[in-house]
């Protein structure tokens, strides 16, 4: 649904556009603030870590990493604490951390003598049933169209995080079942014929996320310009679920969320 509104938004906003040019603006100076990227996908080394950094100037090419912090995750059921070790470049990892479905976990980050905490619960992800490929899709009818189909659970509100990695791009998106509850839903993509060829691999992944994380990512995707709802209202600072226990006003940006993804590879026909 979000995607659909997005398509329409682009359509409206670019209807008469005749000229876009790069400009340089004079911004206020950025005051660095802690950012905790606590998006964990279980079993995926690239995502099975906590990443710490700070905010930076808008035109800067470097996101300053933080390595001098203590990071741990506690299993709330057993009180067992997994210490996460700094592996450089702001990353903290523990390979022994293998969370279980429906369990609650608590993240603790200690940085500059301040303690930050957040919790997350692991949800069961859906599986891609099959993929419909059409070679006459899109507005003009001459694009590739791929629908990755999955079953929505009719008994609850569901929120999904999807990712597509194609030979030409990478894309994160979120969707919900507001208009499609209980149906076979599809996650749809269009590609120009020039961008793909037969035999190319489309690596798709999908997972269930919490409503809070869905709201957070919707806003984040919208303001980062990657995706999102063009009809959504303007936003100030997007705060996540991480709370500074020492000094509440000195909040950290970012989110802590653990998920298990299901992957599906489609080979372009």
């Amino acid at each position, binding site marked *: 649904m979000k995607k659909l509104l997005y398509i329409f938004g682009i359509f409206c906003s670019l209807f008469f556009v005749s*000229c876009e040019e790069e*400009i340089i603006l004079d911004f206020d100076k950025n005051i660095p603030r802690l950012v905790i990227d606590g998006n964990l996908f279980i079993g995926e080394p690239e995502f099975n870590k906590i990443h710490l950094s700070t905010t930076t100037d808008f035109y800067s090419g470097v996101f300053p990493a933080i390595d001098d912090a203590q990071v741990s995750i506690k299993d709330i059921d057993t009180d067992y604490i997994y210490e996460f070790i700094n592996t450089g470049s702001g990353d903290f990892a523990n390979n022994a951390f293998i969370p279980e479905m429906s369990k609650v976990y608590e993240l603790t980050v200690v940085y500059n003598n301040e303690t930050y905490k957040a919790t997350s619960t692991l949800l069961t992800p859906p599986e891609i049933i099959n993929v419909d490929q059409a070679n006459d899709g*899109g507005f003009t009818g001459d694009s590739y169209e791929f629908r990755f189909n999955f079953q929505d659970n009719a008994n609850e509100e569901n929120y999904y995080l999807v990712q597509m990695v194609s030979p030409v791009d990478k894309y994160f998106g979120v969707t919900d079942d507001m208009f499609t509850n209980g149906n076979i839903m599809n996650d749809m993509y269009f590609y120009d014929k020039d961008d793909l060829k037969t035999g190319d691999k489309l690596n798709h992944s999908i997972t269930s996320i919490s409503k809070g994380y869905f709201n957070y990512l919707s806003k984040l995707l919208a303001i980062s310009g990657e995706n999102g*709802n063009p009809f959504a209202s303007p936003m*100030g600072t997007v705060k996540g679920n991480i709370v500074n226990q020492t000094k509440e006003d000195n909040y950290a940006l970012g989110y802590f969320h653990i998920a298990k993804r299901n992957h599906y590879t489609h080979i372009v026909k």
Partner: protein
Amino acid sequence: MQKTLLTTMVFFWFTGVWAQQNDTINSEDLDEIIIDASVNKINIRKPEMSVNKLTSEEIKKMPVVLGETDILKSILLLPGVVNSGEGTSGFNVRGGGSDQNLLLLDQTAVYGSSHLYGFFSIFNNDAVSNIKLYKGGIPARYGGRASSVLEINQKNGDFQQFKATGGIGLLSSRLMVEGPVIKDKLSYLFAGRASYAHLFLKLTDIKSSAYFYDLNTKWSYLMNDKNQLYFTGYFGRDIFKFNDSFDNKFGNTVANLTWNSKYSSKINSEASVRYSDYYYGLTLNFVGFSWDSGIKNYDFNYKINHQINDEFSLKYGISSLYYDFNPGLIEPDVPGSQVNAYQIPHKYAWENALFLEAEQEINSFLSVNYGLRYSMFHRLGEENINLYENNKPVIYNEQTDTYEKATPIGTQYYGKNKSISKFDNFEPRLAVSVKLTDDRSIKMSYNRMTQYVHLISNTTSATPLDIWEPSGPYVKPQIVDQYAVGFFQNLNHNKYSLEIESYFKLGKNRLDYIDGADLIGNRAIEQVLLNGKTEAYGLEFLFRKNEGKLTGWVAYTIAKSMQQTAGRTANETGINNGEWYRTPHDRLHDLSIVASYDFSKKWSFNASFTLQSGRPVTYPDGKYEFLDLQVPNYNNRNNYSMPAFHHLDLSATYSSSKNENRKWKGEWVFGIYNVYNRKNAASINFKSVEGSDNLTETSKLSIFGIVPSVTYNFKF
């Protein structure tokens, strides 16, 4: 992928239009211009201020984009009126929102005001006789919107003979015919306008079309000395179709039947029944989805004009308006679509008002217009209303400092026509004129305006998809108080006139939206709404030259428009940390210069220049990385201004000398919009540099560069 494809697609369409601009002819209408000083000179005595009138002839003279004469663009040249920039619809009066303007086509409310997603207004100037904009001192007979009233009065058809006018333009062609059915008794007027951009689309070998059309009609029946009957009709549609994938239609239907009756030399009445309908439909075949939304209203109005004596007159009456809102119907439109059919339930409301307005000349220098409007609003069933804990549909999350949707704890059912909520308000109105000399006066006014319907939109300008929400259990009516004072002077035997006005406005219950609110297709819109306050003030200058070969005006406004949505309790932050912030239509400076020069019988020249402070915009104060995304970090809303907005437009009209002796009169209008090719910023975008994981850039989008146009107009 999606984006690139669409951009290409849209660009393709646009180049079609662009090419057409340069290759073909464009249309603007210019009748013979009769400059009548009495039209523009100020009525020093009358207790009426903050009102601007423009005749259809004046509007036609203004140079515009593509030569498409545009009523709503013409009022932007008046003091105290701005909009969101090129290619946007709507307008903002004295710091008010675009939804706070009451647009009346022959006294019938109109909801969607633009064609082509905001590029042109829906009002065909050929069918219009004049317009009148009330920015303040609004008389008691008007109500329902908080900021302004724009009256658009259609022409009556000619009672004597058949006449036609028309034009062939770049984007559209127009034809208006009028004449008697029964001489001196019954006359008709038909005006039609249609764009032909779809022809060019078809040439590009795409099974697509994009066009608009509108039809106006007016019937006038002078039954006898005492009774007259008028019928006004309007129907307009925009149609966009791409391949079989995308189908978008929207537009208005308006009808009005008015019966004027004269009881005596001192008393006459006006009774009207009116209907107005705005429809928006969208079908996206490739995702198997269709959407319908809109608003309908039925309206009865009865007004008596009562001239008690030369110094004292009354206007009184009633108005009754029934609304039917369709917030959205979603349907799967192909078999196997993933979408469930869903109708967001219709909402119904009934708005009634009684008004009494008196105009009185108290003595040789003091005259007043005072009145009272009593308005009532009922939200009616049938509807299921959500119930929330503590009556709060929006909850505050103290952990993330954000507002979130509350979960309903139940619903309450209201049967058909059962009252769900009721509001009533007294709206006092007052205008005073103090004559200082025969050419000079000071005027003051106060008005309270109540608005019971709210536009759900967070874009800076109106879009065709805008949805209206009636006041109800969780949404209170907007109330705006305006105080204004002005100095008025006619100079040099009415050759020049000067108006200086200052205003101050305070508003409450202005809707604001929680961060990231989803407004379209929202089944419980109250869960994303918060109540705010507004404040606006400004100083306006208008200097006009009313006679001679050179006529025109200079208008300058310095103004401020702010809003605040504070937390409901001490723990809540509100929007923008509860601080006041600039509304999207805040413009510190606004200068317009309009000039018209009658060079000879054959040639006349027109120019207009606009210079405005840039629109407020929110810039990030930094960026960070999350989930491989580069996220700009926004802090305070509308903390910066876009670059200044300005453009100069010129046009020249050539009427052949052969015109004098023949029935067919033709003329050519040559126009240049944005003569010095100013690239005005329509928006500023913050985004990642393509292909880079850590670089971001800013870019400026501009819409119109220099746009030349040629138009041929005729009448016979």
